[in-house]
């Protein structure tokens, strides 16, 4: 059981989450070429070590998260909201807590 520290809900079992995929993929524009789309959809690194990936807290807050996970050990290095504006708000709140 992997435990994921959701920035909105706290640490939860991975069974509450849905796995998305490789978070490092930049999806092309909708009118991009077939080749660009092919590479974005089908080409994946098979990373042994720290990998950035998306998870969906589907049985929780339903937020998409970016998780840095070691594929060898399941150790999780960081978790942040996938949406940059949400991440910024959380960072502001954290800064406010400290001041």
């Amino acid at each position, binding site marked *: 059981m992997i*435990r994921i520290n959701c920035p909105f809900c706290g640490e939860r079992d991975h069974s509450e989450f*849905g796995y998305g995929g490789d978070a490092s993929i930049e999806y092309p524009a*909708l009118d991009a070429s077939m080749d660009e789309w092919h590479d974005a*959809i089908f080409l994946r690194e098979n990373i042994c070590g720290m990998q950035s990936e998306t998870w969906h807290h589907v049985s929780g807050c339903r937020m998409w998260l970016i998780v840095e996970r070691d594929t060898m050990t399941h150790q999780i290095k960081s978790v942040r909201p996938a949406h940059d504006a*949400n991440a910024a708000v959380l960072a502001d709140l954290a800064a406010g807590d400290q001041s």
Partner: protein
Amino acid sequence: MSAQRLQKGGRINRQKRIDFTWDGRPLKGYAGDSLASALLASNEKVLGRSFKYHRPRGIMSAGVEESGAMVTIGRGARRDPNVKATMQELYQRLEASGQNAWPNVRYDVGAVNSLFGRFFAAGFYYKTFMGLPPFEWGSKGTGLWMKYEKIIRKAAGMGTASREPDPDVYDHAHGFCDVLVVGSGPAGLQAALTVASAGMDVWLVEQDWSLGGDLLNLDDDKMEKKRLELIAELEKAGVRIMRRTTVFGLYDNGTAGLLERVTDHLTTAHAYQPRQRFWTLRARHTIVASGALERGMAFGNNDRPGIMNVAAGRAYLNRYAVLAGEHVVVATNNDSAYRSAAELSAAGAKISLLDARTRVGSEMLDIAADANISLHTGSAPLNATGLPGISGIEVASSIKGGWELESRLNCDLLLVSGGWSPVVHLLSHRGLKPVWNAEQACFIAPSTDEPIHVAGSAAGIWNTDDCFDSGQSTGAHVVKALGGKARARAMPAAGGWKNRIKPVYEVRVEGRKTKAIVDPQHDVTADDIRLAHREGFVSVEHLKRYTTLGMATDGGKVGNIIGLALMAEALGKDIPEVGTTTFRPPYTPVAIGALKGRNVDQHFRPLRRTPMHDWNLEHGATMTMAGLWHRPWYFARKGETISEAYVRETETTRKSVGLCDVTSLGKIAVQGPDATELLNRVYTNPFAKLPIGKARYGIMLRDDGMVMDDGTTWRFSDTDYFMTTTTAHAAKVMVWLEELLQTRWQDLRVHVTSVSEQWAGCAVAGPKSRDVMSACVEDASVMSNENFPFMGVIETTLKGDIPCRIARISFSGELAYEAYVPSDYAPAMMDMLWAEAQKHDGCLYGLEALGAMRIEKGHVTGAELDGRVSIDDAGLGKMASADKAYIGKAMRDRPELLREDRPRLVGIMPVNRDEKFNAGSILCAANKVSGMGEGWITAVTHSPVMGHWIGLGFISGGHEAWQGKAVVAADPVRKGNINVEIISPHMYDPSGEKMHG
């Protein structure tokens, strides 16, 4: 007579007599007994028969590593096979019986197998039955193998499970703690107290019914006092103490799996008690104080009843007050056996002690001399004699590079210590490779970055006082790691014996054939290991699979190290070079029932009911499952079959009007300034110009260009849409929209909310549907054809001021509406609609009629949109816009997806109109009914409109390619080949006049 119950001592309560039966015979024991100790005290010697050779087996241990006394408990539906008698607490009226034997374990016909022992060596089955003809004769050979396999499996095996449904209840439970302590021996007790004293939340988990671990087996008043004090302090400190609970596995990020045996020790359980509880525990830190197991040595007939490990002899004596033999030989290669031998001697046994070491220190000599023990150094057992139980041994003496036969000794009990193996299983579950410690001749877990710590004999620390210290030290370390304050004692090093252990794994004299068992549960012998090596199995992982060493229910607790050592010897290598296999969860067997918990029968998966569920039932619905949803299947009138009912429902709907619960469709509120843009990107057809007050049918593709889902989306304002999805894909579409908005398209100002459960929906279909709707809305004028055209959407109120949103959309091909009200109003809406529908001789219809009408109309559902279908395959290519970009646009133009011969949606009907065909049939050209065929059938129905069976399916090239060609719907499993015609999927009202009318 050899084993006997002592008049005093032990942890049994002689005031509480317990009656139980063994193979139907009444026996007695006392409270505090294990089944094994009670059987031993009753002098029952043969308790089991081995896996392959049906060799007689008795008690081999006093613990979890037991491989001899495997018995069946209970009967009928509650028959529980392969229970270790050593771990079974005795209770009143317990029924135990022997297994893998006929007629019983004492006289077993299967024992003839042992005469053919050489045929049952490693790899026997493969070599004999699979490598040679007839087993390589294709399918025929497989059939023969399966026949022989049945016979072989019957002859070899363990207990058999009940075939009746499990009558017991099992619970799943969840827990959280700061620190999990596994094991309540000296290290575990001390560690738990150290951590709890610092205010941490601690769980102490013990597989036994008493706390103390090896302390329970000592005859030492001082230690007993300390044990009781520690337990009292733990209780005072609020430690959660779990007895009869096994930590069977350690998993990622501090998760542990626990099995709590709640009622397995009770004669009758309370109704509220589950039999077992399956715990998922999340601990910030875990202290593994799981102890060590004593291993034996391989020598001739080393599995005879009357041979057990030394620790077991001590446990039966001190804990259960059973002296297991009168004439006892103790064979050892280390110091740990001496104290036990002395205690057995003091209890009245006559002891000969064989020490494989030629020299031992004076402390050991003094113990032997003081206890009147006859000590033979440089000696070890070579072969056990006597059948079924041991009556004596042949003794070997150590010579340069080996052993030679020296003498014989009579005995009725042989206790063996070949060294101790720390229980590293839980660490192995975490992927840690144990490291060989040559000094102590054992594998020890390496340290880890994870918050998991090892204490006590699990870390190779042999002295009890050192184990207490290591518990304190480990506990204090954990307290500090958790931010608390504690003073740690020095952590003792592994070891603690006065004289070094002499590794002895096998005692053998060259040229003498003996049966030396390495893995007693699977009857793997020392010769099997050497055979495997000769045949080229040099990796331990291959050795394990070829010989099945360590693959029985004990997972190699007893035999693994001896097997590895013999392999290393055969290879001419050291043990660390050979390595060890990986221990995997569970540490001890876990019943399937515990894994399933309460998720059985109707609780196997969640059940979803619509808000008009009860209303449907009251009106005669027969229900069926659609995904997780319970939906009306058909509404049979008195005496009607399902076929009659749905045909009538279809006819009535097409002729007059029908009502159908469509609440299970997915519904998503799509709201915000950029809602239009979002829809325009995810649907293939244009949504940018959808007027307010209109709905549009849309197709969504995946990134790879295949169809994801379809449905209608209704527009209520500039910024407010109501999207419907198929029942099957509702959750998937919701997740997809959330992903797009939160990851790829963060700039879009849109909010999506699942409102599937907020709105209850009813389809009102048929020529009279407008009349029904008009009678139910407050203002009938909103329903006129002019005000409410095809694909129109309105928000209005039903009579009684019920808020309602209605779309004029049709799945049936008739004039039809879908009306949605807030869920609580569902029965009220249905009452109103039904009263009006009845005035037109209308009907209620279910999924069967819904399916029939959509097949007639050629509408696709999840049966067709199975993830392998492109928008062109589904015949919906005209829905794909050429003028805008949308998800999947680039990839749907992949050359393979544009091939003319791709399977495309078609309608199907039988050439002979009286014939029926089945969904799932393969469509083949009539002159080539073989192989993969040209297509397949996804759905069939008897069409009331056409008066015969019709179907939908896919066939290469679509219906144009098959006009006038002979096609067969092949159904080889159900043995039917039906000649069919391939036609357009739009079989009913292709121009759509009816629904537009």
